[in-house]
Every structure is written in structure tokens, then in C-alpha cells.
């Protein structure tokens, strides 16, 4: 198990270095950022002065080395627009995105796991048709479209939820979500819900036919025990990987939803930064998002290893 974790750590570090390289050189390839920042009628001297000030006149490798070492110390440069450290801007927005992604994942699990289990345990039943339908809808309906429909029906007509924005409340110094998160989280979690339904359903269908499930029946256990302790328990190990991947997707994939709901998260910040051509900030968000995904993958692998005794007691 230690060797397993160590090898995953080394892999993760490798991936992050790769990401830094890509993020840095993508920016280089888009041309001269300085010429985009100055006004059209700036004199060449002014442009040169700004370039000098921002360090863009140095050799590329030197710039990369600086970028790299700064990144290691958590310094992702200044936002050109906000004139503030990018990292601070990101960290300010992070709680909103985490709240949204975590709620979306919770919806997906609460709906997806029972529906997949019911569908897989009774193929072609009413519940199975629901499960297959949910899987299909999750994959085909664009979440921004669902978002708009939800707003029109549940917010505008019925008035159950706010149409946009994030409200929170405080308890013992903790910031807690309110129902303002419900609609964006539901819309954002749609795809993930579909993925989880489909995965759980097919895992249940497959595991049902395993020899050890037949053994469980031969012992006289109840259907409930067999489904909970043997089938769902065994399906939950690969489900960990799905959850890890999906949470990464939810953390990084919320640009549309955050824009539609004016949700003050990372996606919104990214949309804004792109609109402003704030390259340093885009770069920082891109790297930060990769960092989150890599960290989640690492966590997922470790959790997977802990959950599966064949890996936990391997080697």
C-alpha cells in the first residue's frame, strides 16, 4: 500500500510539472500579452517600458524558471486587471465553487445510487426504465438549458428559489449554504447524476451474476442484505473512481452554470478573466484547476486502495 501511494504521488508531481509547462507556453504562443494590454495609441517606448516592468523582455527560459519557482511557492503572479495576486482572487472565489460542486455531487449521489440500484436489481421494471431514462437525460440534455428551464418554472413562476446569486448564512462562524445553491447545483449535477445512475446500474447487473453473490444466496441471506452487503458494497469500490473524476469535473466545469446564475465562483472569475484578456489570471486559474483535479485523483486512488483489500494488503 505504501508503495502504491508513493507511486501515485510521483505520478501526480510529474503531471503537475507538465501542466505548468503547458500553461506557460500556451501563453507564449498566444503572442505578446503586453501589446494586448496597452491602449492602441501607446508609443513604442511606453510598450517597452511596460514590457520591462512586467519582465516580458527577458529570455523565455528565464521567464519560465521564474514562473516555475514562483508557482512552487504559491505565487501565480498578479492579475493584470485587478492588480492583486491571482491566488488571492482564486481563493476568495473558491468557497462558492466548492459549495456548488459539493452540493451537485450530493444531488447526483442521492439520486443516482438508489436509482441505479433499483434499476439494476429489477431489469425492465418501472424503476429500470426510470434509471435508463435518467442516464440518457443526464448525457443528452445540456445543463445550461436545464438551468434556464428551472429558473423559469421554479424561480420565476413558483418563486421557490432565487433566480440568481449566492446567499449564505452563518452559524458559529461557519458559512453555510441556503436554498440559493439548489438550482445551480441541480443543473450542474445533471450530467454527473446520469453517469452515476448508469454506472451503478451496470455494476449491479454485472455483480449480480458473480459466484460470490450466488454463495450469499446459498447461505439464506435476505435480498436486502445481499444487495447492501455484497452487491452495493462491491460496486462502491469502482464508484469511488467515478466520484473522484466527477468531482473534478464539477469543480472545473461550472462556467456556464456560474454565469447563468451569477454564482460568484471560479467559473465566473474565469469567464471574466477571459473577457478581460487577463492572461496571468487565466493562467493561474488553469493551473489551479489542474492542481485540484490532480489532487482529487490522488485522493481517489488512495481511497480506492483503502477500500479494496486486494490493494490494501497487496505487495
Amino acid at each position, binding site marked *: 500500500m505504501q508503495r502504491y501511494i508513493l507511486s501515485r504521488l510521483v505520478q501526480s508531481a510529474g503531471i503537475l510539472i507538465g501542466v505548468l509547462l503547458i500553461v506557460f507556453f500556451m501563453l507564449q504562443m498566444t503572442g505578446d500579452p503586453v501589446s494586448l494590454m496597452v491602449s492602441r495609441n501607446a508609443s513604442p517606448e511606453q510598450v517597452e517600458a511596460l514590457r520591462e516592468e512586467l519582465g516580458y523582455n527577458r529570455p523565455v527560459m528565464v521567464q519560465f524558471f521564474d514562473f516555475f519557482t514562483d508557482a512552487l511557492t504559491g505565487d501565480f503572479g498578479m492579475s493584470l486587471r485587478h492588480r492583486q495576486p491571482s491566488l488571492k482572487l482564486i481563493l476568495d472565489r473558491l468557497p462558492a465553487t466548492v459549495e456548488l460542486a459539493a452540493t451537485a455531487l450530493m444531488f447526483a449521489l442521492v439520486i443516482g445510487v438508489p436509482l441505479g440500484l433499483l434499476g439494476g436489481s429489477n431489469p425492465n421494471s418501472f424503476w429500470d426504465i426510470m434509471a435508463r431514462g435518467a442516464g440518457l437525460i443526464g448525457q443528452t440534455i445540456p445543463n445550461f438549458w436545464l438551468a434556464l428551464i428551472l429558473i423559469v418554472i421554479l424561480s420565476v413562476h413558483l418563486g421557490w428559489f432565487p433566480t440568481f446569486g449566492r446567499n449564505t448564512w452563518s452559524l458559529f462562524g461557519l458559512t453555510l449554504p441556503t436554498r440559493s445553491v439548489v438550482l445551480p447545483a441541480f443543473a450542474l449535477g445533471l450530467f454527473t447524476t446520469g453517469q452515476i445512475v448508469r454506472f451503478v446500474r451496470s455494476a449491479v447487473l454485472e455483480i449480480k451474476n458473480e*459466484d460470490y453473490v450466488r*454463495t*450469499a444466496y*446459498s*447461505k*439464506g*441471506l435476505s435480498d436486502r442484505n445481499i444487495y447492501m*452487503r455484497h452487491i452495493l458494497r462491491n460496486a462502491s469500490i469502482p464508484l469511488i473512481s467515478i466520484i473522484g473524476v466527477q468531482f473534478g469535473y464539477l469543480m472545473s466545469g461550472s462556467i456556464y452554470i456560474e454565469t447563468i446564475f451569477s454564482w460568484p465562483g471560479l467559473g465566473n472569475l474565469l469567464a471574466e478573466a477571459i473577457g478581460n484578456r487577463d492572461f496571468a489570471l487565466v493562467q493561474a486559474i488553469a493551473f489551479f484547476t489542474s492542481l485540484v483535479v490532480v489532487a482529487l485523483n490522488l485522493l481517489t486512488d488512495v481511497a480506492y486502495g483503502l477500500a479494496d*483489500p*486486494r490493494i490494501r494488503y497487496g505487495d
Partner: protein
Amino acid sequence: MPILEVKNLVTRFYTIEGVVHALNGVSFDLEEGEILGIVGESGSGKSVAMMSLLNLLPMPPARIERGKALFYENGGQDSVDLLTLTKAERRRVRGGKIGYIFQDALSALNPVMTVGRQIGESLMEHLGLSGEDAKHRAVELLEHVGIPGAEKRYYNYPHQFSGGMRQRVMIAIAIACDPKIVIADEPTTALDVTVQAQIVELIKRLQEELRLAVIWITHDLGVVAGIADRVLVMYAGYPVEISLVDDLYNNPVHPYTKGLLGALPGIGGKRAGRLESIEGAPPDLLAKPKHCQFVWRCPYAFDRCRNEMPELVEIAPKHYTKCFL
């Protein structure tokens, strides 16, 4: 006194390729405390017959069309038909009255549950033991089937055991709730030869200790000769010969049985004789059998064999065969 009486059991599989006639009228009985060996080539319906008794087949595609399986309790006073039980009654029988040892313990045990819990959950189900008591009993059972360091092994997972030790765990599960019958479906086939003998000995020992009736499916005629009281020979989904073990070896009647025994170098001679494979292919189970299914491979077949299915008749005391000869 019989403890189990199976009558004319017919099981089919409704598949895309057609209807598989897996069991075509299986009848036999099992005496209290005896070992009944079942032999027959692969695909002859041995496992399907046993799983039909406990309703362990996937349905669909399987369907039990006909038959009775009377299980006697209280010294033969009460009997129930295993094939018409309610769900709750069936659960009481599975594991509680009839234990099942599967062939390949590696796939038959849950890979992500400790062996202790896999034994314990039976005990909690049937004997209503608390978690604590179930644990103690499970450790005792592990000791009883000869697993050293049972206290520690309780917490191990199936992949941490050797093949032989894993099969011992499987056996512990089968006997955990003090069943009357144990079905052992090729319990040693997946094991090394050296380990096979130990497992055979273990089951034999437990059978005597616990006065179990055992249905023992095997390919190993040496084992059958050594430990079985009676033998049932399966062919194409029905028994072709049932007899006391000595009788069968000394005086086989059905040509298929003769073929199986053909190359056996004498009982007590070379040990571990395998079933002799017989020339020709097993019959196609997709066709409904209208006559003896051995005709294509039988050197003695005559016209009647190609038109009629013989009955299972008693040709000598306790010696039944399904052949016109």
C-alpha cells in the same frame, strides 16, 4: 430413511439460441447420513440439478418446469417440497438445512469481505447470534476445519489464503448452521493434487462427526469408490444408473457407466483415476430428448433405443438403470 427425495426434476434454459434441455427428469433419493456420489461428464446437468433444488439458478433464463424435491424432517414425519417453498421458507433451508460447497472458492467468496464476516453473517441469519457470539463461533468453525491461527485469520480476506485453505473456509460456511445435507459440487477440482486428498478427508471427517448427508459431485472415480455409499451416474440431464458403490464398480449395467469405468485400473489400484472420456460428443441439449440420448455413442444400440426413452428400473436390489439391455 430418506431425507431427500427428488422426483422427475425438469429444468430448462430459455436462451437466444433455443431451449436448453438441461435436466430431463432427474429422480433419486438421499438417505440420512449417507454420501451419494454424482458422476458424469461436464455439461450433463450435475450442477444445474443441485442448484435447482435451492433455486439458485438465474431466472430467466432458467425455469424449473416439473418435479418435486421432498425434504424430510423430524425423522421423516414432516416433509416439504423444496420447489414450492415461499421465499422466507426457502431462506431457512438455504444454509440452515442444506449447506453448499462450490467448486472454486476464489470466485465463490466475496473478495472484499473478511472470511470471518462471511461465516458470521450465516450464523446471525439462521441462529440469530449477536455480532459478538457470531464472531466466537466463526473462529471455532475456522479452527474446526483446520485453519491454523483462526483468531487472526478471521480478519483476513479470501485472497490472503491458499487454495486449500480457502476451500476450508467455504466448507466452514457450508456447515456453519448445522445443516442436515451438504452439497459438495466438485469441491476439489480447482485444487492441487496434494491438497485434494486433505479436503476429501476433511469433508469425510465432518460428515461422520455431524452425521451429514452429503451429495458429492466429482470427476474422481477414485474418490467416489473410497468414500461414497452410493453413486448416481448422470448423462444428458438424467440419471442413467444409480447403485451401491461396490455394485456399480463390480457390475456396471449401463453402457455409459461401463465406458466411464473402462480404463479405470481396478479399484484400489492406481489412485485418483479420472473419468474415462468416451468417444463421441455429448448430445445436443437444444433438442428435446425423445429417446435414449446415448444411442449415438453406444455400441449396443438397437432400434428400440432410437425410438423410446427407457424408464429407470430396479434391476437388482438398490440398483437402478435406464437402459433396454
